[in-house]
Protein backbone atom coordinates (compact mmCIF):
# COMPACT_ATOMS: atom_id res chain seq x y z
CA UNK A 1 0.00 0.00 0.00
CA UNK A 2 1.24 3.41 -0.88
CA UNK A 3 -0.40 6.75 -0.48
CA UNK A 4 -0.82 8.97 -3.50
CA UNK A 5 -1.77 12.61 -3.55
CA UNK A 6 -4.40 12.87 -6.25
CA UNK A 7 -6.06 16.27 -5.98
CA UNK A 8 -6.41 19.46 -4.05
CA UNK A 9 -9.57 19.51 -1.97
CA UNK A 10 -10.99 22.53 -3.77
CA UNK A 11 -10.49 20.95 -7.18
CA UNK A 12 -13.53 18.72 -6.83
CA UNK A 13 -16.77 20.43 -5.84
CA UNK A 14 -19.55 18.72 -3.97
CA UNK A 15 -21.43 16.41 -6.33
CA UNK A 16 -18.60 16.41 -8.85
CA UNK A 17 -15.98 13.87 -9.84
CA UNK A 18 -12.45 13.77 -11.15
CA UNK A 19 -10.70 11.07 -13.10
CA UNK A 20 -7.20 10.32 -11.81
CA UNK A 21 -4.60 7.80 -12.90
CA UNK A 22 -2.80 6.18 -9.98
CA UNK A 23 -0.33 3.33 -10.31
CA UNK A 24 -1.66 2.54 -13.75
CA UNK A 25 -5.29 2.43 -12.66
CA UNK A 26 -8.11 4.74 -13.63
CA UNK A 27 -9.83 5.93 -10.51
CA UNK A 28 -12.93 8.10 -10.22
CA UNK A 29 -12.77 10.46 -7.26
CA UNK A 30 -16.04 11.89 -5.94
CA UNK A 31 -16.92 14.61 -3.50
CA UNK A 32 -20.09 13.50 -1.71
CA UNK A 33 -21.35 16.29 0.51
CA UNK A 34 -17.80 17.27 1.42
CA UNK A 35 -16.43 13.77 1.90
CA UNK A 36 -14.16 12.16 -0.65
CA UNK A 37 -14.52 8.65 -2.07
CA UNK A 38 -12.73 6.83 -4.83
CA UNK A 39 -13.85 3.88 -6.95
CA UNK A 40 -12.49 2.19 -10.04
CA UNK A 41 -13.53 4.06 -13.14
CA UNK A 42 -14.76 0.97 -14.96
CA UNK A 43 -18.33 -0.21 -14.74
CA UNK A 44 -18.49 -3.94 -14.00
CA UNK A 45 -21.22 -4.38 -16.58
CA UNK A 46 -19.70 -3.41 -19.93
CA UNK A 47 -16.85 -1.19 -18.83
CA UNK A 48 -18.12 2.39 -19.24
CA UNK A 49 -16.26 5.27 -17.55
CA UNK A 50 -18.06 5.80 -14.25
CA UNK A 51 -16.66 9.30 -13.79
CA UNK A 52 -18.79 10.29 -16.79
CA UNK A 53 -21.95 9.06 -15.13
CA UNK A 54 -24.50 11.09 -13.25
CA UNK A 55 -24.46 11.58 -9.51
CA UNK A 56 -27.96 10.79 -8.33
CA UNK A 57 -30.12 9.93 -5.35
CA UNK A 58 -32.59 7.11 -4.97
CA UNK A 59 -36.24 7.14 -5.95
CA UNK A 60 -38.02 4.58 -3.81
CA UNK A 61 -41.64 3.58 -3.51
CA UNK A 62 -43.29 1.13 -1.14
CA UNK A 63 -46.47 1.16 -3.18
CA UNK A 64 -47.66 2.70 -6.43
CA UNK A 65 -47.94 6.45 -6.19
CA UNK A 66 -45.93 6.91 -2.99
CA UNK A 67 -42.45 7.91 -4.06
CA UNK A 68 -39.76 9.34 -1.85
CA UNK A 69 -36.32 10.56 -2.76
CA UNK A 70 -33.44 9.61 -0.49
CA UNK A 71 -29.68 9.54 -0.43
CA UNK A 72 -29.22 12.59 -2.65
CA UNK A 73 -25.83 12.69 -4.31
CA UNK A 74 -24.66 9.37 -2.92
CA UNK A 75 -24.98 7.16 -5.97
CA UNK A 76 -23.30 7.17 -9.35
CA UNK A 77 -25.36 6.11 -12.34
CA UNK A 78 -23.34 4.54 -15.14
CA UNK A 79 -23.35 6.67 -18.32
CA UNK A 80 -24.41 3.72 -20.46
CA UNK A 81 -27.04 1.38 -19.06
CA UNK A 82 -27.65 3.23 -15.85
CA UNK A 83 -26.59 0.70 -13.24
CA UNK A 84 -26.27 2.56 -9.96
CA UNK A 85 -23.45 2.19 -7.47
CA UNK A 86 -23.01 3.48 -3.95
CA UNK A 87 -20.15 5.93 -4.23
CA UNK A 88 -19.07 5.23 -0.64
CA UNK A 89 -18.59 1.50 -1.08
CA UNK A 90 -18.71 0.71 -4.79
CA UNK A 91 -21.56 -1.69 -4.17
CA UNK A 92 -24.28 -1.83 -6.75
CA UNK A 93 -27.65 -0.70 -5.53
CA UNK A 94 -29.52 -3.62 -7.08
CA UNK A 95 -27.28 -6.54 -6.26
CA UNK A 96 -24.69 -5.52 -3.67
CA UNK A 97 -23.68 -9.09 -2.94
CA UNK A 98 -22.65 -9.95 -6.48
CA UNK A 99 -21.85 -6.70 -8.19
CA UNK A 100 -19.45 -4.07 -7.04
CA UNK A 101 -16.89 -1.62 -8.24
CA UNK A 102 -13.55 -1.64 -6.50
CA UNK A 103 -13.35 1.13 -3.94
CA UNK A 104 -10.23 2.70 -2.51
CA UNK A 105 -9.44 4.31 0.82
CA UNK A 106 -9.34 8.06 0.58
CA UNK A 107 -8.37 10.64 3.13
CA UNK A 108 -7.77 14.34 3.28
CA UNK A 109 -4.43 15.52 4.58
CA UNK A 110 -2.99 18.97 5.03
CA UNK A 111 -0.08 19.96 2.88
CA UNK A 112 1.99 20.45 5.99
CA UNK A 113 1.36 16.92 7.14
CA UNK A 114 2.23 15.57 3.74
CA UNK A 115 5.41 17.57 3.42
CA UNK A 116 6.62 16.53 6.85
CA UNK A 117 5.84 12.89 6.48
CA UNK A 118 7.45 10.35 4.24
CA UNK A 119 5.03 11.24 1.44
CA UNK A 120 6.67 14.30 0.05
CA UNK A 121 4.15 16.12 -2.15
CA UNK A 122 6.83 17.62 -4.27
CA UNK A 123 4.48 18.90 -6.96
CA UNK A 124 2.89 21.32 -4.50
CA UNK A 125 5.79 22.89 -2.68
CA UNK A 126 4.37 26.40 -2.61
CA UNK A 127 0.98 25.52 -1.24
CA UNK A 128 2.05 23.72 1.87
CA UNK A 129 -0.94 24.93 3.89
CA UNK A 130 -3.63 23.56 1.62
CA UNK A 131 -5.51 20.28 1.98
CA UNK A 132 -4.93 17.40 -0.37
CA UNK A 133 -6.90 14.29 -1.23
CA UNK A 134 -4.85 11.16 -0.71
CA UNK A 135 -5.73 7.73 -2.00
CA UNK A 136 -4.25 4.48 -0.74
CA UNK A 137 -3.47 1.73 -3.19
Amino acid at each position, binding site marked *: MARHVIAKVEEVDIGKSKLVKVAGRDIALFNVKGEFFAIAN*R*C*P*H*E*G*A*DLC*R*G*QVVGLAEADEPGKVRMTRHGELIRC*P*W*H*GWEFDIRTGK*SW*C*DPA*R*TRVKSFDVSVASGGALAEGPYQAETFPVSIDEDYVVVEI
Partner: protein
Amino acid sequence: MNHAVLDKDTKADAKLGIVDCDIHPAFGSPAELAKFLPVRWRDHLADYGQRSANPVVGTLPYPRMTPGNGMRRDAWPPNGGPPASDLAFLQEQLLDPLGIEYGILQPLAAGSSTLNQELGAAMCAAVNDWQLDKWTGPDPRLKASISVTQEDVPAALAEIEARIGDRSFAQIAIPPRTIEPAGRRRYWPIYEAAEHYDMPIGMHSAAYGQHANSGAGWLNFYIEEHYAFSHSLQSVVTSMVFEGVFERFPKLKLVVVEGGFAWAAPLMWRLDKQWERMRSEVPHVKRPPSDYIRENVWFTTQPIEEPENNRHLLDTLRWVGTDRLMFSTDYPHWDFDDPRFAFKVPLSPTERAQIFRDNAKRVYRLP
Protein backbone atom coordinates in the same frame (compact mmCIF):
# COMPACT_ATOMS: atom_id res chain seq x y z
CA MET B 1 -31.58 -9.90 -9.30
CA ASN B 2 -30.34 -10.49 -12.73
CA HIS B 3 -26.79 -9.32 -13.30
CA ALA B 4 -24.07 -10.44 -15.58
CA VAL B 5 -20.82 -8.96 -14.45
CA LEU B 6 -17.41 -8.43 -15.93
CA ASP B 7 -15.15 -10.51 -13.79
CA LYS B 8 -12.18 -10.56 -16.06
CA ASP B 9 -10.81 -8.54 -18.89
CA THR B 10 -12.10 -9.80 -22.19
CA LYS B 11 -9.66 -8.58 -24.78
CA ALA B 12 -11.05 -7.14 -27.95
CA ASP B 13 -10.18 -9.39 -30.80
CA ALA B 14 -8.28 -6.82 -32.79
CA LYS B 15 -7.95 -8.99 -35.84
CA LEU B 16 -11.66 -9.66 -36.06
CA GLY B 17 -13.14 -6.74 -37.96
CA ILE B 18 -16.59 -6.10 -36.60
CA VAL B 19 -19.74 -5.23 -38.51
CA ASP B 20 -21.97 -3.03 -36.38
CA CYS B 21 -25.50 -3.40 -37.73
CA ASP B 22 -27.16 -0.56 -35.85
CA ILE B 23 -25.68 2.93 -35.69
CA HIS B 24 -27.96 5.95 -35.40
CA PRO B 25 -26.58 9.00 -37.17
CA ALA B 26 -28.12 12.31 -36.09
CA PHE B 27 -28.63 15.72 -37.64
CA GLY B 28 -26.44 18.43 -36.15
CA SER B 29 -29.50 20.67 -36.53
CA PRO B 30 -32.79 20.39 -38.45
CA ALA B 31 -31.31 22.65 -41.12
CA GLU B 32 -28.96 19.85 -42.05
CA LEU B 33 -31.81 17.80 -43.49
CA ALA B 34 -33.67 20.79 -44.92
CA LYS B 35 -30.68 21.38 -47.19
CA PHE B 36 -31.61 18.22 -49.09
CA LEU B 37 -35.32 19.02 -49.42
CA PRO B 38 -36.95 20.79 -52.36
CA VAL B 39 -38.07 24.33 -51.51
CA ARG B 40 -41.70 23.22 -51.67
CA TRP B 41 -41.20 20.84 -48.76
CA ARG B 42 -38.84 23.08 -46.86
CA ASP B 43 -41.57 25.71 -46.83
CA HIS B 44 -44.17 23.14 -45.93
CA LEU B 45 -42.12 21.98 -42.97
CA ALA B 46 -41.59 25.56 -41.83
CA ASP B 47 -45.32 26.28 -42.06
CA TYR B 48 -46.88 23.02 -40.91
CA GLY B 49 -44.17 20.81 -39.46
CA GLN B 50 -43.95 17.07 -39.85
CA ARG B 51 -46.74 14.99 -38.39
CA SER B 52 -46.29 11.33 -37.61
CA ALA B 53 -48.75 8.96 -35.98
CA ASN B 54 -47.10 9.58 -32.60
CA PRO B 55 -49.46 11.06 -30.03
CA VAL B 56 -47.43 14.17 -29.38
CA VAL B 57 -46.09 16.21 -32.25
CA GLY B 58 -42.38 16.90 -32.32
CA THR B 59 -41.49 14.67 -29.41
CA LEU B 60 -40.94 11.02 -28.78
CA PRO B 61 -43.95 9.35 -27.17
CA TYR B 62 -42.02 8.73 -23.96
CA PRO B 63 -39.42 10.87 -22.26
CA ARG B 64 -36.18 8.95 -22.01
CA MET B 65 -33.60 9.48 -19.34
CA THR B 66 -30.39 11.51 -19.71
CA PRO B 67 -30.26 14.75 -21.58
CA GLY B 68 -31.22 14.11 -25.18
CA ASN B 69 -33.76 11.30 -25.33
CA GLY B 70 -31.92 8.24 -24.19
CA MET B 71 -28.36 8.85 -25.25
CA ARG B 72 -25.20 7.53 -23.72
CA ARG B 73 -24.12 10.31 -21.40
CA ASP B 74 -20.59 10.28 -22.74
CA ALA B 75 -21.60 10.48 -26.40
CA TRP B 76 -21.95 14.28 -26.72
CA PRO B 77 -19.40 15.52 -29.24
CA PRO B 78 -16.94 17.99 -27.70
CA ASN B 79 -17.58 20.39 -30.58
CA GLY B 80 -21.30 20.59 -29.91
CA GLY B 81 -24.36 19.06 -31.51
CA PRO B 82 -26.23 15.98 -30.36
CA PRO B 83 -24.68 12.48 -30.03
CA ALA B 84 -23.71 10.85 -33.34
CA SER B 85 -24.01 14.10 -35.26
CA ASP B 86 -20.25 14.57 -35.64
CA LEU B 87 -18.41 12.11 -37.87
CA ALA B 88 -14.98 12.75 -36.35
CA PHE B 89 -16.22 12.05 -32.84
CA LEU B 90 -18.14 8.98 -33.99
CA GLN B 91 -14.94 7.67 -35.54
CA GLU B 92 -12.98 8.45 -32.40
CA GLN B 93 -15.50 7.01 -29.93
CA LEU B 94 -16.95 4.11 -31.90
CA LEU B 95 -15.41 3.02 -35.20
CA ASP B 96 -11.69 3.27 -34.45
CA PRO B 97 -11.37 1.94 -30.89
CA LEU B 98 -13.77 -0.95 -31.39
CA GLY B 99 -12.30 -2.05 -34.70
CA ILE B 100 -15.51 -1.64 -36.64
CA GLU B 101 -14.91 -2.60 -40.24
CA TYR B 102 -18.41 -1.69 -41.38
CA GLY B 103 -21.27 0.13 -39.71
CA ILE B 104 -24.84 0.04 -40.96
CA LEU B 105 -26.60 3.38 -40.51
CA GLN B 106 -30.15 3.34 -39.22
CA PRO B 107 -31.40 6.92 -39.41
CA LEU B 108 -34.52 7.47 -37.32
CA ALA B 109 -35.89 10.44 -39.19
CA ALA B 110 -39.50 9.20 -39.37
CA GLY B 111 -39.95 10.05 -43.05
CA SER B 112 -41.50 6.62 -43.48
CA SER B 113 -44.01 7.27 -40.69
CA THR B 114 -45.05 10.74 -41.83
CA LEU B 115 -48.80 11.11 -42.26
CA ASN B 116 -48.47 13.35 -45.31
CA GLN B 117 -47.01 10.67 -47.53
CA GLU B 118 -45.75 12.99 -50.22
CA LEU B 119 -43.81 14.86 -47.59
CA GLY B 120 -42.69 11.51 -46.21
CA ALA B 121 -41.32 10.47 -49.58
CA ALA B 122 -39.45 13.76 -49.91
CA MET B 123 -38.03 13.36 -46.41
CA CYS B 124 -36.92 9.81 -47.12
CA ALA B 125 -35.14 10.98 -50.28
CA ALA B 126 -33.50 13.79 -48.31
CA VAL B 127 -32.38 11.41 -45.57
CA ASN B 128 -30.89 9.14 -48.21
CA ASP B 129 -28.97 12.01 -49.81
CA TRP B 130 -27.84 13.17 -46.39
CA GLN B 131 -26.44 9.74 -45.50
CA LEU B 132 -24.31 9.76 -48.64
CA ASP B 133 -23.18 13.34 -48.18
CA LYS B 134 -22.39 13.40 -44.49
CA TRP B 135 -21.52 9.79 -43.65
CA THR B 136 -20.83 7.16 -46.28
CA GLY B 137 -18.98 9.52 -48.63
CA PRO B 138 -16.47 10.75 -46.04
CA ASP B 139 -16.16 7.34 -44.33
CA PRO B 140 -16.75 4.31 -46.55
CA ARG B 141 -16.83 2.04 -43.50
CA LEU B 142 -20.35 3.37 -43.04
CA LYS B 143 -23.19 1.95 -45.14
CA ALA B 144 -26.54 3.64 -45.58
CA SER B 145 -30.13 2.39 -45.40
CA ILE B 146 -32.57 3.24 -48.18
CA SER B 147 -35.29 5.00 -46.26
CA VAL B 148 -38.70 4.49 -47.96
CA THR B 149 -42.38 5.23 -47.40
CA GLN B 150 -43.77 1.73 -47.22
CA GLU B 151 -47.41 2.92 -47.09
CA ASP B 152 -46.98 4.57 -50.49
CA VAL B 153 -45.58 1.60 -52.33
CA PRO B 154 -45.04 3.24 -55.75
CA ALA B 155 -43.05 6.01 -54.07
CA ALA B 156 -41.04 3.42 -52.15
CA LEU B 157 -40.27 1.55 -55.37
CA ALA B 158 -39.18 4.76 -57.09
CA GLU B 159 -36.82 5.52 -54.24
CA ILE B 160 -35.41 1.99 -54.29
CA GLU B 161 -34.85 2.21 -58.05
CA ALA B 162 -33.10 5.53 -57.64
CA ARG B 163 -30.64 4.21 -55.04
CA ILE B 164 -30.15 0.59 -55.83
CA GLY B 165 -27.13 1.06 -58.06
CA ASP B 166 -25.16 2.73 -55.29
CA ARG B 167 -23.35 0.21 -53.09
CA SER B 168 -23.15 2.81 -50.33
CA PHE B 169 -26.63 1.53 -49.49
CA ALA B 170 -26.80 -1.82 -47.75
CA GLN B 171 -30.50 -2.32 -47.01
CA ILE B 172 -34.04 -1.03 -47.45
CA ALA B 173 -35.41 0.34 -44.18
CA ILE B 174 -39.02 -0.02 -43.07
CA PRO B 175 -40.46 0.52 -39.57
CA PRO B 176 -42.15 -2.58 -38.14
CA ARG B 177 -45.39 -0.93 -37.05
CA THR B 178 -46.80 -0.63 -40.57
CA ILE B 179 -50.45 0.28 -41.19
CA GLU B 180 -51.30 -3.32 -42.03
CA PRO B 181 -49.41 -6.38 -40.81
CA ALA B 182 -46.12 -6.62 -42.65
CA GLY B 183 -47.03 -9.78 -44.55
CA ARG B 184 -49.99 -8.20 -46.39
CA ARG B 185 -49.97 -8.11 -50.17
CA ARG B 186 -49.89 -4.34 -50.35
CA TYR B 187 -46.22 -4.48 -49.31
CA TRP B 188 -45.22 -7.33 -51.60
CA PRO B 189 -43.89 -5.15 -54.43
CA ILE B 190 -41.29 -3.84 -51.97
CA TYR B 191 -40.31 -7.38 -51.01
CA GLU B 192 -40.21 -8.37 -54.65
CA ALA B 193 -37.81 -5.52 -55.41
CA ALA B 194 -35.70 -6.36 -52.37
CA GLU B 195 -35.40 -9.97 -53.45
CA HIS B 196 -34.75 -9.02 -57.05
CA TYR B 197 -31.88 -6.71 -56.08
CA ASP B 198 -30.63 -8.98 -53.28
CA MET B 199 -31.05 -6.13 -50.81
CA PRO B 200 -32.14 -6.98 -47.25
CA ILE B 201 -35.20 -5.38 -45.70
CA GLY B 202 -34.16 -3.91 -42.34
CA MET B 203 -36.98 -3.50 -39.83
CA HIS B 204 -35.83 -1.34 -36.97
CA SER B 205 -37.96 -1.02 -33.86
CA ALA B 206 -38.37 2.53 -32.78
CA ALA B 207 -40.71 5.05 -31.32
CA TYR B 208 -42.01 5.67 -34.83
CA GLY B 209 -44.69 3.71 -36.60
CA GLN B 210 -48.32 3.87 -37.64
CA HIS B 211 -49.77 2.31 -34.48
CA ALA B 212 -49.66 2.41 -30.72
CA ASN B 213 -46.93 0.24 -29.31
CA SER B 214 -49.15 -2.45 -27.86
CA GLY B 215 -52.26 -4.19 -29.11
CA ALA B 216 -54.15 -2.47 -26.29
CA GLY B 217 -52.91 1.01 -27.13
CA TRP B 218 -50.21 3.23 -25.72
CA LEU B 219 -48.38 1.87 -22.72
CA ASN B 220 -47.79 4.14 -19.76
CA PHE B 221 -44.05 4.01 -19.28
CA TYR B 222 -40.92 4.10 -21.38
CA ILE B 223 -39.76 0.94 -19.64
CA GLU B 224 -42.78 -0.77 -21.22
CA GLU B 225 -42.23 0.76 -24.62
CA HIS B 226 -38.66 -0.50 -24.64
CA TYR B 227 -39.86 -4.03 -24.15
CA ALA B 228 -42.70 -3.57 -26.65
CA PHE B 229 -40.14 -3.15 -29.45
CA SER B 230 -39.94 -6.92 -29.54
CA HIS B 231 -43.73 -7.33 -29.81
CA SER B 232 -43.97 -5.54 -33.11
CA LEU B 233 -41.11 -7.57 -34.54
CA GLN B 234 -42.68 -10.85 -33.46
CA SER B 235 -45.82 -9.74 -35.29
CA VAL B 236 -43.78 -8.88 -38.37
CA VAL B 237 -42.07 -12.26 -38.49
CA THR B 238 -45.28 -14.20 -37.83
CA SER B 239 -47.25 -12.25 -40.41
CA MET B 240 -44.58 -12.60 -43.10
CA VAL B 241 -44.34 -16.34 -42.52
CA PHE B 242 -48.08 -17.05 -42.53
CA GLU B 243 -49.03 -14.66 -45.32
CA GLY B 244 -46.57 -16.61 -47.41
CA VAL B 245 -44.07 -13.85 -48.11
CA PHE B 246 -41.06 -16.12 -47.72
CA GLU B 247 -42.72 -18.87 -49.72
CA ARG B 248 -43.32 -16.41 -52.55
CA PHE B 249 -39.93 -14.66 -52.22
CA PRO B 250 -37.60 -17.42 -51.06
CA LYS B 251 -34.46 -15.31 -51.37
CA LEU B 252 -35.84 -12.34 -49.44
CA LYS B 253 -33.67 -11.31 -46.48
CA LEU B 254 -35.32 -9.76 -43.45
CA VAL B 255 -33.17 -8.19 -40.75
CA VAL B 256 -34.91 -7.66 -37.42
CA VAL B 257 -33.16 -4.73 -35.77
CA GLU B 258 -33.19 -3.72 -32.11
CA GLY B 259 -35.96 -6.00 -31.00
CA GLY B 260 -33.94 -8.51 -29.00
CA PHE B 261 -33.65 -12.06 -30.25
CA ALA B 262 -34.12 -14.58 -27.43
CA TRP B 263 -37.85 -14.65 -28.21
CA ALA B 264 -37.14 -16.01 -31.68
CA ALA B 265 -36.44 -19.49 -30.34
CA PRO B 266 -39.77 -20.05 -28.51
CA LEU B 267 -41.58 -18.29 -31.36
CA MET B 268 -40.20 -20.86 -33.79
CA TRP B 269 -41.12 -23.74 -31.47
CA ARG B 270 -44.61 -22.46 -31.08
CA LEU B 271 -45.28 -21.61 -34.70
CA ASP B 272 -44.02 -25.01 -35.79
CA LYS B 273 -46.34 -26.77 -33.36
CA GLN B 274 -49.33 -24.77 -34.52
CA TRP B 275 -48.45 -25.27 -38.15
CA GLU B 276 -48.42 -29.02 -37.66
CA ARG B 277 -51.97 -28.88 -36.34
CA MET B 278 -53.46 -26.08 -38.43
CA ARG B 279 -51.52 -25.97 -41.65
CA SER B 280 -54.67 -26.52 -43.67
CA GLU B 281 -55.64 -22.95 -42.82
CA VAL B 282 -52.53 -21.71 -44.61
CA PRO B 283 -51.86 -24.29 -47.30
CA HIS B 284 -49.57 -21.81 -49.09
CA VAL B 285 -47.14 -22.18 -46.18
CA LYS B 286 -45.49 -25.37 -47.33
CA ARG B 287 -42.76 -25.84 -44.75
CA PRO B 288 -42.52 -25.47 -40.97
CA PRO B 289 -42.35 -21.76 -40.01
CA SER B 290 -38.92 -22.21 -38.46
CA ASP B 291 -37.60 -23.28 -41.85
CA TYR B 292 -38.41 -19.87 -43.30
CA ILE B 293 -37.13 -18.04 -40.25
CA ARG B 294 -33.85 -19.94 -40.39
CA GLU B 295 -33.45 -19.15 -44.06
CA ASN B 296 -34.85 -15.65 -44.45
CA VAL B 297 -34.57 -13.84 -41.11
CA TRP B 298 -31.58 -12.43 -39.22
CA PHE B 299 -31.54 -10.68 -35.85
CA THR B 300 -29.28 -7.92 -34.62
CA THR B 301 -28.07 -8.48 -31.09
CA GLN B 302 -28.87 -5.28 -29.24
CA PRO B 303 -30.70 -5.14 -26.82
CA ILE B 304 -29.07 -8.36 -25.80
CA GLU B 305 -30.89 -10.57 -23.34
CA GLU B 306 -28.84 -10.97 -20.16
CA PRO B 307 -29.92 -14.05 -18.22
CA GLU B 308 -29.16 -14.42 -14.54
CA ASN B 309 -26.75 -17.18 -15.34
CA ASN B 310 -24.44 -16.07 -18.18
CA ARG B 311 -24.25 -19.58 -19.53
CA HIS B 312 -27.91 -19.52 -20.41
CA LEU B 313 -27.14 -16.85 -22.96
CA LEU B 314 -25.06 -19.44 -24.77
CA ASP B 315 -28.04 -21.77 -24.96
CA THR B 316 -30.20 -18.94 -26.24
CA LEU B 317 -27.69 -17.97 -28.92
CA ARG B 318 -27.55 -21.54 -30.14
CA TRP B 319 -31.32 -22.01 -30.06
CA VAL B 320 -31.79 -18.96 -32.23
CA GLY B 321 -28.77 -19.94 -34.32
CA THR B 322 -25.40 -18.22 -34.35
CA ASP B 323 -25.80 -18.06 -38.12
CA ARG B 324 -28.86 -15.82 -37.58
CA LEU B 325 -27.33 -13.22 -35.27
CA MET B 326 -25.53 -10.05 -36.25
CA PHE B 327 -23.78 -7.84 -33.74
CA SER B 328 -24.97 -4.27 -33.18
CA THR B 329 -24.02 -1.53 -30.76
CA ASP B 330 -27.02 0.79 -31.13
CA TYR B 331 -24.60 3.70 -30.72
CA PRO B 332 -25.15 6.34 -29.38
CA HIS B 333 -28.18 5.18 -27.44
CA TRP B 334 -28.12 4.44 -23.74
CA ASP B 335 -28.47 0.70 -24.18
CA PHE B 336 -25.35 0.56 -26.37
CA ASP B 337 -23.42 -2.72 -26.34
CA ASP B 338 -19.64 -2.80 -26.27
CA PRO B 339 -18.45 -5.67 -28.50
CA ARG B 340 -15.66 -6.48 -26.05
CA PHE B 341 -18.03 -7.17 -23.17
CA ALA B 342 -21.49 -7.78 -24.58
CA PHE B 343 -21.24 -11.56 -24.76
CA LYS B 344 -19.80 -12.82 -21.51
CA VAL B 345 -19.96 -16.41 -22.71
CA PRO B 346 -17.37 -18.74 -24.19
CA LEU B 347 -18.25 -18.62 -27.87
CA SER B 348 -16.18 -20.72 -30.22
CA PRO B 349 -14.01 -18.75 -32.66
CA THR B 350 -16.36 -19.71 -35.47
CA GLU B 351 -19.41 -18.53 -33.55
CA ARG B 352 -17.71 -15.26 -32.67
CA ALA B 353 -16.77 -14.68 -36.27
CA GLN B 354 -20.32 -15.44 -37.38
CA ILE B 355 -21.96 -13.08 -34.94
CA PHE B 356 -19.49 -10.23 -35.09
CA ARG B 357 -18.69 -10.22 -38.79
CA ASP B 358 -19.43 -13.05 -41.19
CA ASN B 359 -23.23 -13.20 -41.09
CA ALA B 360 -23.51 -9.46 -41.65
CA LYS B 361 -20.95 -9.48 -44.44
CA ARG B 362 -22.96 -12.10 -46.26
CA VAL B 363 -26.38 -10.57 -45.61
CA TYR B 364 -25.29 -7.07 -46.61
CA ARG B 365 -22.93 -8.29 -49.34
CA LEU B 366 -19.98 -6.42 -47.90
CA PRO B 367 -16.56 -7.02 -49.42
